[in-house]
Every structure is written in C-alpha cells, then in structure tokens.
C-alpha cells in the first residue's frame, strides 16, 4: 500500500504547481477572459512545450505512456489555478477517444499535432433530450457510398468553438436509447454543414452548440466499429469524471484553506470570525468532506487504472460525492466570507462557479447516486 506519488509524478506535480502559481493569479485569469479569448495562446504553447499534452498518451503515439494517475496529478493543480486552457477537452476526452478507437492512419494524422498543441479537440456527446444519458442519441448518421451523412444537434460541447477536430456520437442503428447502434465520428470543424456556435459558460470557460446539416464524413473517420461506439464513449466518460473530480478537489482545497485564513483575519464583534465555534465547526465539516473526496478520488483512480470499466460503480460513487460536496463547500465558503464572498474580487466565487459546472458535467450527483444505487448490489 502506498499513496505517495513516484518521483516522476512528483516532478510533474511541482512543475504544474509552479506554472499555476507563477502565471495563474486571479487577475491574469480574469484578464484573459475579459479579452474575449477562450484561453491564452501563450499559456497553451507553454503547456505543450512542457510536455504535459503528451504525458498521458501512449508512447506509440508519441506520448509518455502515463495513465489516469498522471491525469489526476495535472488536473488537481489546474483546479487550484482555475486553468482555462483546454487540456480536459482536448486530451482527457478527445485524444483518449482517438486512442481507443482511431485507425493508425487517423491517429498519425491528428495526434502529433494534438501533442504539439497545434490542433485542439472537443467531444460532442450530449443532446438536450438525453439529459445525462450518453446512450440517448437522436443525431443520425446514414451511409452514402464510402461516406456517412450526419444530421442533428450536439449540445454544450466544451471547447467546441476552438477545436479543429470534433468527435461526435451519432446513431447509425437502433432506437433512441439503445446502447448498440451508436457510432463515433471525427469531424474536421471546417467541414461544410457543421456549425459551432460558441458562448461563455458561467465558470469562465466556453462551450458550443453544434448543429450538423448533411455533414459528410468519410468512413475512415469512424472511431472503433460502426454501431459499437458506446464502449468507447463509456471509457472516455469514466476518464473524464476522474479528471473533473481531480480538478474539483484542487478547487475545494483552495476554498476551505482560503476560508480558514480569511476568518482569522476578518474581525466582527471585536473578535476574529474564527473565534466563533459555529464557524469553526462549519470549517471542520468543509475540511472533513474535502478529505473524504480525496480518499474516494484515490480509490476510484487506482481502481480504474487497474481494472477499467469494472470500476464504474466506484466512479459513480465518486461523481456523486464530488458534486454534492463541491457545491456545499462552495456555498459555505461564500457564506463564511460574508459580503466579500459575493464579489468577483475574491477567488472564492470563481472556484464556486467552477464547482457548480463540474457537478453538472457528465452527470450530476443525483444522476450518479441513482446509477450507483440501481447497480446489481442493490437488487433483491
């Protein structure tokens, strides 16, 4: 049993932490957003130069062969900095899907550029009527010679406005919620009939609504087998949940620590706020719930790294807890900061907003608790 990072992981953690503390003050982050950009090109170039884009990708594809634990190390630090650059959309989701299902030719065409940061990816898996069900898909793909023709709509696609290549799930067979008959396509965003309309999300990031009108995609751009895309979708979502949870953990740590610091400085009724027991206990609760999230994140990450989809039940447990605790810690941090917690001036509110969005990404806490409690262990 060992929960310490190895030497390489420790080095990565130190270097990501340094990047965040050197370049990611709240002020510099907010100025990127104010400039109307989705993220900073300069920061993205730095992230690529430092080798983090390839860290978790297989060596055969030009990466360093890392796994979910390495992703966790990076995402936790990114969470502390509220990093805007699309590591999650491009690498954790996009590159992972390509690795799981892309032909050699497709991977060689796209992945080197992704690792160098020249090409960005996005993953369109959601549709409005589906709420959080990945298998509920109305976007259709029909065969036409050696092409597929896609029609439909993909919703809330993170980084959709910046990506050069978009991965979408579409129905090639079966009924609306069948898990077979789903196929994944890699589409160049310059393709005719594809429209990405980008907008800001409340956490400072961006997403896009994507409409597909007779978009023609060559057969060679299918990931995995036709009709069999659901397994890839599940694997990518599982890794995505782990990464979002690590990011959330970083944000939660900042929130509870900032609150402990602030309540010792701010005085009311001739006392530092932290003198009041009711506030102390609220902060102890925040700290305890944070530690519980950390424990479950370690558990889920190790289980997924060791046994893949078989660890899905633990991943449901994790996303439920992260969603529930993340929003609670965020709300309490604002409450304990009083009026100042309501301002954009402090970091508190920005972490809170990110945690709210994380809860809703890839299924919220109610959704995952339901999945957890309807698994076989609960059947009579």
């Amino acid at each position, binding site marked *: 049993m060992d929960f310490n990072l190895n030497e390489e992981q420790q080095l990565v953690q130190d270097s990501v932490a340094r990047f965040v503390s050197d370049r990611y003050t709240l002020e510099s982050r907010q100025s990127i957003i104010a400039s109307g950009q989705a993220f900073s090109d300069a920061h993205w170039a730095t992230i690529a130069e430092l080798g983090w884009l390839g860290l978790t990708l297989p060596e055969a594809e030009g990466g360093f062969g890392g*796994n979910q634990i390495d992703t966790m190390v990076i995402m936790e630090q990114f969470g502390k900095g509220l990093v805007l650059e699309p590591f999650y959309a491009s690498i954790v989701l996009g590159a992972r899907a390509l690795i799981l299902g892309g032909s050699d030719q497709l991977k060689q065409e796209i992945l080197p550029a992704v690792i160098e940061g020249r090409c960005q990816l996005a993953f369109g898996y959601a549709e409005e009527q589906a709420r959080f069900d990945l298998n509920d898909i109305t976007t259709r793909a029909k065969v036409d010679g050696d092409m597929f023709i896609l029609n439909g709509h993909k919703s809330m696609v993170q980084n959709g406005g910046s990506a050069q290549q978009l991965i979408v799930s579409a129905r090639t067979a079966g009924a609306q919620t069948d898990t077979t008959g789903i196929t994944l396509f890699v589409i160049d965003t310059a393709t005719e009939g594809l429209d990405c309309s980008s907008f800001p999300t409340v956490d400072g990031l961006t997403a896009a609504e994507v409409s597909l009108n007779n978009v023609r995609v060559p057969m060679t751009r299918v990931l995995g087998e036709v009709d069999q895309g659901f397994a890839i979708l599940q694997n990518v979502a599982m890794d995505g949940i782990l990464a979002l949870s690590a990011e959330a953990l970083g944000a939660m740590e900042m929130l509870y620590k900032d609150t402990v610091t602030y309540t010792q400085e701010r005085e009311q009724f001739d006392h530092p706020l932290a003198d009041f027991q009711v506030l102390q206990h609220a902060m102890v609760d925040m700290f305890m719930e944070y*530690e519980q999230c950390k424990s479950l994140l370690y558990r889920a990450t190790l289980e997924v790294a060791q046994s893949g989809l078989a660890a899905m039940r633990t991943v449901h447990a994790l996303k439920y807890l992260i969603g529930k605790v993340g929003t609670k810690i965020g709300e309490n941090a604002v409450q304990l900061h009083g009026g100042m917690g309501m301002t954009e001036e402090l970091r508190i509110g920005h972490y809170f907003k990110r945690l709210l969005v994380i809860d809703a990404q890839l299924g919220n806490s109610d959704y995952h608790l339901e999945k957890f409690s309807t698994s076989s262990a609960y059947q009579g």
Partner: protein
Amino acid sequence: MSIPQPKRSATVDIELSPEDLSFQSEVRNFLKENAYKQGDYNKWRLNWFKLARAKGGWDIPKWPEKFGGPGWSPTQHYIWEKQTAVSVTPWDLPFGLSMLAPVLMNYGSQEQQDRFLPAIRDRKVNWCQGYSEPGAGSDLANLKTKAQLTPDGKHYIVNGTKIWTTLAHIADWIFCLVRTSDTGKKQEGISFLLFPMKQTGIEVKPIITLGGAHSVNMVHFTDVKVPVENRVGEADQGWTYAKGLLQHERTGLAGISRSLVALESLKEQAKGVKRGNGTLMDEPAFRTKVAELEVDLMATEFTELRSLAAAAGGHNPGPESSILKLKGTEIQQRIQKLTVEAGGIYSAAWGAKPVGHSFARAGMSGYLSSRAYTIYGGASEVQKDVVAKNVLGIKKSGK
C-alpha cells in the same frame, strides 16, 4: 477494443504484496480452523487466546514487539481487522488490553509492568476505566474525586464519584483519574491510580441506558485506601498520561471493518422485507439512503488506508486520521438507524423475542445504544474543536 495499458507502473498501489497475501491466507486459516463450534464457550475462549499467542503474539496484535506483540506492519494490521470482522472471534474488552496497557508500557515502573501486564494478556483480570464524573464529562479535567496522602505517605485515601463506568460491576480492578492537588491549572494536580474494585468503600450502582442494557454504572468511593506504589508515574502528572490514552481510544473507535460487514447485513435484511411485489430495497427513498451511506463508507475506508499507509511509511498520522472517529461513529449510527427503519413497526416490539422481522428487536436496542458513539471518548463537538485547533491551525485570539 482493448484499453492501452500504461507502461509506467505507478507506485500508488492498493494491491497486496505476495507476502501480505500469504499472511492474509494464514490469518484466514487460523480464524476458520479455530472458530467456535460447540461446547464450553469459556474454555474455547481462553484456549483461542493461547493458540493465538502461539502464532507469535496474535493474542495482542497492537502491543509492541518488546512486550510480546507480533510487530506487524500497518498493512498486516489492516488485514487482521478485515478478517476478524467477518469471523467469529472470542469477546474481548479494550480496557486493560488497549487502554491501560499502553499507559503502563510508557509510564509504569518495571514492577508495575511485571505485575499487571501478564494478567491483562491472559484475560484473567478485567479492568474498568474511572474517568468521567457527574461534573466532568467532555470537560474531563474538571474532575473532583479526591485522593489524599496519609500522614505516613504510604497510602492515598480516595473519595468521590465516577459515572458512565462501563462494566464496573464485573471489573476486578479500576484505573482511575483522581485529584491530588487543587493549585494551578485544573489539568495539573491529577494522578493516575490503580486499585481493586472488590473492597470496602466502593459502591457500584447500575445505570440502565436507552437500549435497556446494563453496561454503565455510577461508582462511589468512600475512604478507599490505595497504596502509593499503585500510582502510575509521577504525582499530579496523570493528565499527561491520560491524554495519550484518550488519543488511543479515539483512533480505535472508527470501526470501519465492522461497519462494512454491518452494511452488507443491512442490505440483506432490507431485501428480505416485502413491500408489494418487491422489497424495501426497491423503495427509492430507502435505497438512496443506503447508497449515500455506502459511498461515505467507501471514502472512509480509504481515509483509513491513507492513514495506515502514512504510518507504514513512518510518517506521523496525517490530517486524514483526525476525521476517522468523527466519520466512523457517524456511519455506525446511520447503519443502526436504517436497520430500525427497515424493521418498520416491528422495531417497536420490545419483548424477549423478536416479532415479525427477526432482526428488528436487536436493531432497536443496537440503535439506541449507538447514540452513545458520538458522545463517549470525547463528544463529536469536542472532536471538532480539536480538529479546528490542531489540524486547521485556528488559534484562540485571546480577545
């Protein structure tokens, strides 16, 4: 489709090493071979401890090697906990074995160690703990039981009252905090005494708790004579010794392994409760509560592993260990509460035998008893004060 395997192996690892796996099967075999079958329970119990002793200190897993303990790694302790939680092991009491013994090992004289430790190990002498008093609960240092030195300096004369003294009515001896000085801070002036329970001047009155059980007592001391050589360590320094012991008591109270077993029983019980065409486990509100509980327990199990792994690496217990008692006891109570809910109206039946669901009678008494878990060993609110101060680093401003 196959999932690419990472080439780099992570050191973060929850898998047991081959040595740990073989230890695990050795423990399993031992527990299986020596499980109680039939016949004289007491004879079996004492013999079980003898056999465990012959394995090399398995009768005292937590004692240091120097005192005959097995010298296990934290992982081995974890394996032992897990395996014993799912096996039938003889009953055992923590007072002598886990609470007094560490104090004697750290602060007792050689003579006291030789005199008391062997009988504790052999389960021949039952101890009880004389800490709380009517005016000293969570604020333990407020205790008033007085021990006055006789003019010849050979004895203490003890007068006062202890309360919530678990199993005082069957105990042979008591370890007791008494006030030997009234000057200075209230934490100073406390001494740690050992004396027999069966003597004149000691009166034990039962207190029946909500579950109907008699396990705690009120104990009155009237001019009880205790030889000076029965004092552990220095006079007036007892608080220091007791504090270390309290810490020990708190970390032992999380009961994660037992909760894992109890949760599985709860699920089985609920699946046996019929409701319409299905069972109670099909009821979304109930099932959701069980699921929330299970997730918390899954996290706490890993919190305990993190704490064990830190100890294995020779580090001090990290902040994660401070939350184990708080979370662990809360989880135990939630399991008990859901058991009562599962029992429905049958949880009300309070006769000698269960009515309706077989688990309901024990479920109610277990639930009522469990309300004490967040009170004894330092109430949860006091624990939170401790975490705020020692872990979050919040200092009193002095204003």
